[in-house]
Every structure is written in C-alpha cells, then in structure tokens.
C-alpha cells in the first residue's frame, strides 16, 4: 500500500475529529530549523464543509481493538485499514509544512493492539519530527486512555496541545455505546495532563530552559445528538470541565450517522447542526463573556431556544438590567449586551475616553446595532423609534429576519415553530 492510499484512508477516518485548531503555542523560529508557532493560530484552508484546515489531521492507524457503536473505525466495521510508519508520517508532515499547506500535525489514532503500543507509535513519530528534523511547528496529540502515564508524559513533552476525548456527555451513554471505554479511564489521563501542565509552569518560573509540557493546554470533544442528554446537562458538563480540568477548549461534534444500530439515531437523520451551533455560542459565553452555565440554561429551560441565540435569550429574561448607557456601563455589562462582542466592547471603552459616544459614532466604529439597539442608550436616549420593552425587542429581533410578523409573540408558543431563517443561516455560516 502506498502513501497515497494510506493518507486517503487515515484522513478519512480522522475527519470526524473536530479539534483542528493551532492556537495557544508561541514559539519563534530558530536559525537553521523549520517552523514557528503563533498563539493566535492560523487557518490554512477551508474544506468544502466550511471547516478550517489548520493541521494535517490523520490517524496513526485505524486498526482498532475497540467496538464503539458510533465509531466508523470500530472492530466490527468492514472498512479498509492502514497504519502509517512513524517515518512516513514525519516525512509527509515536513513536506506539507514546507509548502505552507499546514500549521503542523494533528495526530490521533485508533487503538492498535493496546493503548501502550499505539502511544509508542505516536511517540516515535513525534520524536523523529522534533528531535531528528528539528520541527518547530504545531503538534496536537491525542492521549489514548489506558496508556501508561510515562508514555503520556513523554508525548506531552513533544506536543503543543494534548487532548483526551470524553466521547459522550454522560456515563450511561458511554456504557451503552462504548462498552470498552470507562469514564474513569478517560478522566485519568485528563487529570494527569492538567497536573503536568501546572507542574511545568511552576518549573518554568524557576528554570528558564526546562522543557515545556503541553504548553498550549488541553482540549476535549464530545458527540452531540447520538444520546438523549439535554443541552443544560451538556453545558454544565462543559463548564465543569473548564473549571476542574482547566481545559482550553471543549469541542462539540454533531453526530453524523455512520452506522445502523438500534441504540443510535436512524442513518437518515440530519446532523443536529443548529444545536451544535447553539452549544458553541454558549461555550463562547462561558469562556469570554463571564456567563455561568446556570445563567444560560436551567432545570426549567433545559434546551436552547431555536430562534434566539443564548445571549439574546438571557437579555430578554433579564430586561430589568437594560437598557445600559454606552458612555458609563462597565466593560463587563457591555459584554452582556446582545450584538456587542469582545472587540466591540473594547472599542467602546477606548473610544469613550476621547468623548461622549452617540449611535452615529457606534455605527462608524462598525458596531452592529441590529440587536444592540434594543438594549442601549447613548447620552441617556434610546435610538430613535426604539423603546426598551421586551415584547418590542423580541418582535424587532425576529423582524430583522423578515419573519417577525409570522410569529405570535408569546414566548411559549414560539418554540412550536421551526427555526428562523437567520438561525439556519448562522448555523450554515458558523465555523466550528
């Protein structure tokens, strides 16, 4: 089997992995060596599904001893199998990197023979890249649950980011769909990586040149829509992962039916893209906007509104805190205004030091008022023709999409209808 076929098989098997980001590591180039890394990351291309291609995302091998029902590489599935040799993969990475096709390598693997054996193969690849070729680009490596902690530690010394897939949002689902995997076995390496990162940071303070352990942190991913968990459960889990395991990112992957099985959604089910989109919106609120999971959803509203994004939804339920005055509101409160993001809030805070701002100024600064107008005052006044009334705001927010008249305004009735055009659009254009 030549490298062309291997690449086809092993890229195809890796395509459902979502965490293809190259952010978090900052490393200048070094004379005579290839590569550097920037903490903002870099997208090198976008595939036909609109997802960013940043890293050479492949599996070391798709030969697997496990039989997880949702997975295309499960033992009982009849698909072509392949294994890269460490040398082949390292050479391919270098060749692609030199031509600026990629930002680095994303190396995951099915479990060949045993977790230890798989980790050793991956480690050999990373050794060739880092030690023999002096590669300074980005490397994201998956830790294989069940592998020896020493191996995971060694991989972490070579990689920029590590991740362990939590796979499914609850233990019951995991038992049902991935009987070979244990939740505790997944959380164990996650904890080890967290501790390794903390320890490495402490050592760096004392010894400048101590090698770094997974300097770009760790991430995880879970499959959405294959199992019955509510959005609230998923969001609480996400929030807990950020807090307890200090993760950089939690990725969500809308389940694409690849297998016919009684425990799984039917094969003709569409991937729940809108739901995935809403989860990412909420994830951003957790990480950058100072929201907590309980503010976004709760026991009584365990699912996202298909019409309104989580931030609009929160603002309408807390209309008593609005409108806020652009020229006086704190940065934290500006961040909570629907339609104003981190960039917008920063621009406002900078510009208002130079003088009082009006709606015209906001427009000039390219702050989009489509949503924000219902929640803002400038110099004590709302925008002409706009009042701060939840019903009016709701009507306006929906009318913006040209669909407002079609809906009645009762919030309970709303959820009976299909998602608005805007939601469909956002979920179509949204990048994960």
């Amino acid at each position, binding site marked *: 089997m030549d490298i062309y076929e291997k690449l086809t098989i092993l890229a195809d098997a890796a395509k459902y992995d979502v965490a293809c980001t190259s952010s978090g590591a900052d490393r200048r*180039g070094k004379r005579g060596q290839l*590569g550097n890394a920037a903490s903002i990351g870099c997208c090198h291309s976008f*595939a036909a*599904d609109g*997802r960013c291609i940043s890293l050479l995302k492949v599996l070391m091998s798709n030969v697997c001893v496990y039989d997880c029902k949702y997975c295309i590489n499960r033992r009982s599935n009849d698909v072509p199998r392949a294994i890269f040799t460490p040398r082949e993969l390292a050479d391919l990475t270098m060749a692609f990197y030199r031509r600026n096709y990629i930002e680095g390598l994303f190396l995951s693997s099915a479990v060949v023979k045993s977790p230890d054996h798989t980790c050793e193969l991956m480690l050999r690849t990373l050794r060739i890249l880092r030690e023999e070729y002096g590669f300074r680009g980005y490397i994201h490596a998956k830790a294989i649950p069940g592998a020896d902690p020493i191996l995971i530690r060694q991989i972490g010394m070579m990689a920029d980011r590590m991740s362990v897939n939590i796979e499914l949002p609850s233990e019951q689902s995991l038992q049902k769909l991935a009987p070979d995997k244990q939740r505790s076995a997944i959380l164990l390496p996650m904890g080890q990586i967290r501790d390794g990162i903390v320890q490495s940071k402490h050592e760096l303070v004392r010894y400048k040149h101590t090698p770094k352990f997974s300097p770009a942190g760790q991430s995880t991913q879970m499959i959405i829509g294959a199992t019955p968990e509510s959005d609230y459960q998923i969001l609480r889990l996400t929030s807990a992962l950020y807090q307890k395991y200090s993760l950089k990112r939690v990725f969500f992957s809308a389940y694409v039916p690849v297998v016919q099985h009684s425990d799984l959604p039917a094969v003709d089910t569409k991937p729940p893209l809108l739901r995935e989109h809403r989860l990412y919106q909420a994830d951003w609120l957790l990480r950058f906007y100072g929201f907590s999971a309980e503010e976004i959803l709760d026991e009584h509203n365990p699912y996202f509104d298909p019409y309104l994004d989580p931030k609009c939804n929160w603002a309408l339920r807390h209309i008593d805190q609005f409108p806020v005055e652009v020229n006086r509101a704190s940065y934290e409160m500006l961040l909570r205004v629907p339609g104003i993001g981190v960039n917008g809030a920063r621009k406002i805070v900078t510009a208002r030091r*130079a003088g009082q701002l009006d709606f015209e100024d906001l427009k000039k600064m390219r702050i989009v008022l489509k949503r924000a107008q219902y929640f803002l005052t400038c110099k004590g006044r709302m925008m002409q023709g706009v009042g701060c009334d939840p019903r009016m705001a709701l009507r306006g927010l929906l009318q913006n999409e040209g669909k407002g008249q079609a809906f009645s305004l009762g919030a309970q009735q709303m959820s009976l209808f299909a998602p608005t055009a805007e939601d469909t659009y956002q979920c179509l254009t949204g990048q994960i």
Partner: protein
Amino acid sequence: MLDRTDIVYYYDGTFDGLLCCIFASYVKKEIPLDIIDQNGGQLQLFAGKQILTEKEKARRVACGLRDKAGKQAYAMLQRGFLTCLPQKEITLLRFARAAFAQGSGILRMLSHPAVLPLANALTHLRREAELLTGFVRFTEYEGVLGSVITPKNQVLPVLARHFCDRYNAEAFFIYDRTHRQVLLHYGQRSEIRDAAAMEVPDISAEEQCLQSLWRQFYDTIAIKERYNPRCQRTHMPLRYRDNMTEFQTVVQKMPPGNGALQKRAIQQKRYGKLLQTENRSHITEGDSISGNGLYDL
C-alpha cells in the same frame, strides 16, 4: 488660515515623498485637493505642484510626528501607505495633520473623520495579511520554494516577518503579482524588490506527487453530510483560490502504484462554476507568470 485649494500635489510614489507632501502642506498652509503618484500614469488634469522628495524634510516630518503623537501613530501612517485605500495619500495627509493637532489622543478617536477611513483600511490590510499567512502556497523548484499571490493591499512587508522567521533556513520567494514586487529570502537575508514578471521552471514529478497528496487530503477531510460552500466562501473568499494548490486543476501523473494519468475533473466540476462567475480581470493581463505553464501542466 488654512486654504482648501484646488491644487494637486504630484510626488514620486515613495513614503518619503508623501512625508514631503505633508511638509509642503504645512509650509504653504494649504490642503491639496489630491496627492497623485506621478508614475501612476494618470492624466494630469489639474494644476499641479511637483513635490520633490528630500530626505531631510521627510526625516523632520517623521520625527515630528513621533514626538507629537507617538510611535503608534507614526506606525499607522507607515502601514497606511501599504493599503489599497483609494486616494490613500490624501487620507494619510489628513490623518497626519489631525495627529499633529491632537497628539497621541488621536489613537483613541476612533470615529474622527480623519482616523476612521484609515483605521478601516488598516483593518483590511491586517485581515488580508492574516489570511495570506495561511493561504500562501509554496511550490518547490529545484530546492527553492516559490509562491504567487494577488493581494489587494501591499502585504509583502507584513508577510515578510512571518515567513522569514518560519522558513529561515530555506530559500524562498513570494511574488506579488498585483503590485509586481517580490519578497526574496536566502541564506538568512531577505529583501523586497520590484519585478515586472517572474519566470519559473517546470515542476518535478516528485513535486507533482506531493501536490496530488495534498489535494487528496483536502478532498478527503471534508464531511459530505455537512457540505457548506457558503461557510467556506465566508472564510476563504474566491479570489484567493486561484493561487492555491488545492484548487488548481491539472492533468497529472498519480503517484506510483496508481499508474495512469488522471484528470482532476471532479474538482473542476465542483468549483468551475463558482470560479467562472468571479471577476478574474486581474490575472488575464497576459503577464508572463500566468502563461508560463505553472498552472497548465
């Protein structure tokens, strides 16, 4: 008092030349109607003043601006000169005058009429350079890496830092076909030169092999259930794709083991329609790089 005249300044198209225009505008106490690059080939319709470039005057303006409004404001002026803003010279002159008047506070006046167009143009430049750090595609020609780009702004000075750091041990060039400039890097040295055209040799079989590997990876990694060309276009506008390996349609030899010549008809079908509707006037100028067999293997 300031005169708003109907006079036009002609300058030599260099940054120092522009600084001298700013100098002249202060000396004569006038704001010109426009500042035009005399090499730009425009008809000289208006009464014009030829502004001579003098190093000393340029230095005085540069130092003055740095003292008065800070390094950051001066950097904005320098960067602004690289943008594709229409009448960028007059916009930069207005910005410089505002910066002299307001001092460093100018950086915070985001909605000031002299700052706003420049700030937006700079965002455009920054965005384009950011995208291109990812979208530049090198091809190996006998050990030298080469790439062609067609940006709207003059991004080479911005890109140079990134690529010279990343590929410091390589010899490479990036040719900007819009502005006919080339960034050369070899043996730890780099420079940007004007180049009317760029000739490259044919690529080797090995290189073709690698390119087909990359195209195969690119096609394989997409999930067809999530096919979403609109999202793809949002993040990667069509105008960049002409220069990217994964979108180039070629007849090529497949790597050993597969043997036969194969046409990449699938991709042509998939993207051909999109590409036809795009305005491609900027590459049909008949310059030597587009017709030298780089794309028609």
